[in-house]
């Protein structure tokens, strides 16, 4: 295996780590579709920053995109709270509008430039090892630094806020009354999701963002009964899918993010079968606790 292939696997794996952890919490909170919406909604932020500064991938881009991701989440929250629009309809109202703004921005002002809709949707992890920055004299792929940093931040975030996050996921009212600040933890979780979706969007494109947030977490949910085990399994599934997906993509000469996505789905299928078998051989499954 070449160094570049290794690098792609590591980048995808690091990204899937953060996504799988946050995705597991979202799945248990019945907000599994939020990352999908956010990953669409960040597009106008990326386009706007590109039009203003001419930069496609910088810290400013991340900030601009995160701002729009937050706009989507907050707008969704506001619409839902008015009681006029149901939760899922509120989501379905917010993200297509923001995504539309982004597409119009690209086709009106930025066509022919280095930003195009294809790379935003399909992602370009294939070339990630080639874009390097010098770090202490060594050329390091930029995506590696970004995804590594993101994974570290997410792990720290979950470790530090474990109690409030855990409690507010399973018993929001208890989390409030016992002074654990469940509301604050939930908001922080949404901010983390928006930030990570942007990082992922930038590194691997929209398809993998959606898959990485949902599929490993769902796979783990089928196989485990405690939150800790679920997180470990979800992260493992993410790495496994990244590794197998990259190998198969090279073997079949197909798109790398697409193949990684399909491998994650195949793993989910295996987990479905396994959970059937497990349930038949054991007592009825107990809920996650």
């Amino acid at each position, binding site marked *: 295996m070449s160094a570049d292939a290794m690098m792609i696997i590591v980048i995808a794996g690091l990204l899937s780590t953060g996504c799988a952890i946050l995705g597991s919490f979202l799945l248990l909170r019945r907000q599994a579709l939020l990352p999908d919406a956010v990953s669409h909604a960040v597009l106008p932020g990326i386009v706007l920053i590109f039009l203003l500064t001419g930069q496609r991938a910088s810290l400013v881009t991340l900030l601009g995109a995160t701002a729009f991701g937050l706009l989507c989440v907050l707008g969704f929250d506001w619409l839902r709270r008015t009681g006029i629009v*149901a939760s899922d309809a509120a989501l379905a109202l917010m993200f297509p509008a923001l995504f539309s703004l982004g597409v119009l921005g690209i086709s009106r002002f930025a066509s022919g430039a280095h930003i195009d809709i294809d790379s935003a949707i399909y992602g370009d992890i294939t070339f990630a090892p080639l874009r390097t920055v010098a770090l202490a004299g060594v050329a390091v792929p930029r995506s590696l630094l970004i995804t590594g940093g993101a994974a570290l931040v997410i792990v720290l975030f979950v470790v530090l806020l474990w109690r409030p996050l855990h409690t507010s996921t399973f018993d929001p009212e208890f989390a409030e009354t016992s002074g654990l600040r469940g509301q604050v933890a939930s908001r922080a979780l949404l901010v983390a999701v928006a930030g990570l979706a942007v990082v992922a969007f930038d590194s691997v494109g929209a398809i993998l963002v959606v898959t990485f947030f949902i599929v490993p977490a769902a796979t783990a949910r089928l196989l485990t009964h405690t939150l800790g085990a679920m997180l470990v399994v979800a992260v493992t599934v993410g790495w496994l899918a990244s590794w197998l997906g990259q190998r198969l993509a090279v073997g079949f000469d197909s798109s790398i993010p697409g193949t990684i996505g399909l491998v994650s789905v195949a793993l989910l299928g295996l987990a479905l079968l396994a959970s059937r078998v497990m349930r038949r051989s054991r007592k009825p499954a107990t809920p996650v606790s």
Partner: protein
Amino acid sequence: MISWLVDALPLPYPDAVVVVGAALLGFVAGALGPFAVLRQRAMFGDAMSHATLPGVAIAFLLTGAKVPEVLLLGAALSAGLAALAMIGLNRSGKLSPDASIGVVLSISLTLGIVLLTHIAGSGNSQQAGLNTYLLGQAAGMVERDIELTLLLGVLAFACVVTFFRLLRSSIFDPGFSAVAGARTWAVDAAATGLLALAIVLGVRTVGAILMVALLVAPCVAARQLTTRLATLVPLAGVIGAVAGGIGGLASGRAELPAGPVIVLLATAFAIACVLFAPRRGVLARRWRSGPHPLVREKARPGTADHSRAEPVS
């Protein structure tokens, strides 16, 4: 009849075709939207519209030609399969509805993109234009597309009118509906089928990613203006038609993709209705609820907030 309508509009022929086609499509999607939105199946529709992508790609791979009807048939089949998969995953008991939708959504998107990239790389000269199914294009519309939309739209509308009472009770009181002897699965299948129809008709003009907005936004807007389902359905249709017609025309003139323009128009109208609608609007409520909640409660006990409890009927 269509050529008469197209000729009657004071527009150049290609523009007139686009306006009529996009408006018709907006009407069908808008009018069928409530049957998804009021059942809290908005994101279900999103996953189904993403699922049209692999269907279109597979239909193209099998036939090797870009016949709209064949591609739409492929889209309809795979949207239906996606609906079945979501219901099945949900019934299996361990995944919540949103997780099932998310899983099917990501399978559909991944598979669709992989197949479309594969086709784009295969060098088949016929394939140009397949990716309009991603973001939509109104400019290439011809009279035959309008005829197809009209035919299927009339069929769907006849269905809705005939089974209106069944559909209504299955939305608002599924328990009663089942007890009264309606076959729940049949009503469910019919509602899902109508949803698939609306999505398939719209996906080429609006695009798979944005199609859900054309189902949801007109319904949200119309919901602010009426409390009766029998008014809501045609009203949402009209709102969709206006957004579709204006958006289709504007996008063609400005050489922009049609989907985003139509979606932004419809969403802007929906948000305006949420804010400014006469009775249910956010501003109307705030104005009615007076200066301070405590003062109001004292002054008019028991009359606090009727607007919230006002049901659709």
